[in-house]
């Protein structure tokens, strides 16, 4: 598989087909694993890192044939390709900007990716569309089980899987669900979600923006602790709280539609009009406008565009995706022009 093969499709997780897909974008599971007998990345030397990467890569390609695994070594990829993988949530920013021997194994449908030499020796990640944490866990669990037949992971009966940071020790599992909550943001009630979720030791963070102020009304909810609860307990905890947040967002949307219908319709149609006619548009503005349109599609205010088209636009309008489409490097202003033209074309098609 070549990276350019990925470019034309949005990846299974953005298909908008999973359960509760109008509010839940995706479900993600990641496992941290380290090899026994090797130092962690904090103290490993260059030779050990190289050795480790070669070994994991070989075992990965041999044992994960069923997933159609491909492997990409990060130092051999250019900056646009690295950013491309970050935008698709297949690798972290840290892996993209790191140094030394490191890489990523990708399943052909992009539902599983394995980062090598990120913070831990291995980070196995599963990504599914909509609310499907269990499905993501099953995929990751299967890959992990196959890998442990040929790699010895650092493990202690008392502390579980041993990780470089004690915050990940135990299961090494981080389960997260990405939510689209524009109505709660509009009515300034998103803080209630933060507070409720913090009480049961889950974390909320904004998705695309830097820091805590997320742009585009997207929030990610994940577990904080990794020790003392089994993988399925953690998943259950999150699975139980998500429907409540979905219900909250939906109730607020319904109230808004009853009490401020014109305001809602105006917000959605203005956003749609801007996207359809703008000649230059930044990625932040795109995110905000797409968020409003996405809510409009979900509420039936706009019927001429489909949800999957909007989901794709979120991905395809990001910098590396634009540059890969154009097969050339673009500066910020050029990107704003190309982005606007791409969005116009896509929205015209769906008329």
């Amino acid at each position, binding site marked *: 598989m070549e990276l350019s093969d990925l470019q034309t499709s949005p990846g299974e997780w953005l298909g908008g087909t999973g359960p509760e897909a109008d509010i839940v974008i995706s479900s993600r599971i990641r496992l941290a694993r380290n090899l026994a007998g090797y130092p962690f990345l904090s103290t490993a030397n260059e030779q050990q*890192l190289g050795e480790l990467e070669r070994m994991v890569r070989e075992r990965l390609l041999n044992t994960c044939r069923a997933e159609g695994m491909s492997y990409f070594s990060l130092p051999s990829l250019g900056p646009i390709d690295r950013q491309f993988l970050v935008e698709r949530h297949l690798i972290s920013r840290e892996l993209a900007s790191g140094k030394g021997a490191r890489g990523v194994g990708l399943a052909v449908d992009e539902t599983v990716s394995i980062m090598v030499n990120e913070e831990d020796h291995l980070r196995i990640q599963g990504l599914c569309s909509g609310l499907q944490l269990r499905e993501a866990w099953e995929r990751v669990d299967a890959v992990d089980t196959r890998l442990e037949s040929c790699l010895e992971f650092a493990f202690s*009966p008392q*502390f579980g899987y041993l990780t470089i940071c*004690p915050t990940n020790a135990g299961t090494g599992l981080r389960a997260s669900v990405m939510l689209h909550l524009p109505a709660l943001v509009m009515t300034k009630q998103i803080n209630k979600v933060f507070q409720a979720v913090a009480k049961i030791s889950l974390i909320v963070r904004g998705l695309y923006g830097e820091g805590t102020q997320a742009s585009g009304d997207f929030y990610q909810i994940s577990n904080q602790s990794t020790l003392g609860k089994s993988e399925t307990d953690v998943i259950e905890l999150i699975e139980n709280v998500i429907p409540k947040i979905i219900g909250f967002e939906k109730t607020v949307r319904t109230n808004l539609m009853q009490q401020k219908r014109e305001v809602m319709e105006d917000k959605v149609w203005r956003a749609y009009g801007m996207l359809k006619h703008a000649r230059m548009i930044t990625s932040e503005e795109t995110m905000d406008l797409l968020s409003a349109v996405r809510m409009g599609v979900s509420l039936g205010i706009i019927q001429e565009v489909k949800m999957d088209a909007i989901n794709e636009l979120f991905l395809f309008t990001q910098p590396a995706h634009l540059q890969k489409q154009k097969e050339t490097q673009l500066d910020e202003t050029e990107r704003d022009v190309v982005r606007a033209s791409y969005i116009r074309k896509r929205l015209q098609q769906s008329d």
Partner: protein
Amino acid sequence: MLCELCNKSEAVVHLVDVSNNSRAEKHLCKDCAASQGATIKSHMQKSSSSTKDAGDVLPEIFQNLSATSGAAEAEACGQCGTTYRQFRSSGKFGCPECYVEFNVKVSDLLEKIHSRCEHTGKVPSTASDDLAQQKELQTQQKRLQGLYADLDKAVNDEDYERAAELRDEIQRMQEGAAEA
């Protein structure tokens, strides 16, 4: 690899200095590294990693941990040479053995982070055999203790027939354990 300084002990501290766009490597044994006051600076260390996952909570926890004695702080992992002080300042262990080397402190720390300190999740299939074996050993140990207690009681009660039975049983168990 031998230590660059003393040429006697095995080098366990590998320093990589990447300042000024050049790389300088140093390989030292535990003692020489400690006497040099060396701080391990891996080229893979990332300043941004504290902002992701639950890493945010760690500095606070470290601040709230009562300072341990200087000796305990300087204690180094026999495998990788990372001291507890280094771990406290970076929030990162040096190798899997650090968990064993700093066991008591690690238990406390993990309990502060996760509110628990016992793993209850997935166990690698390779490790689960060992675990089952350990459990088996523990139950045997308990049974053996019970038998010895019964034996003491039988001897005290001058029930020598019962005592002989118990002695035989203990012998059988110990032979069985030796074979396994």
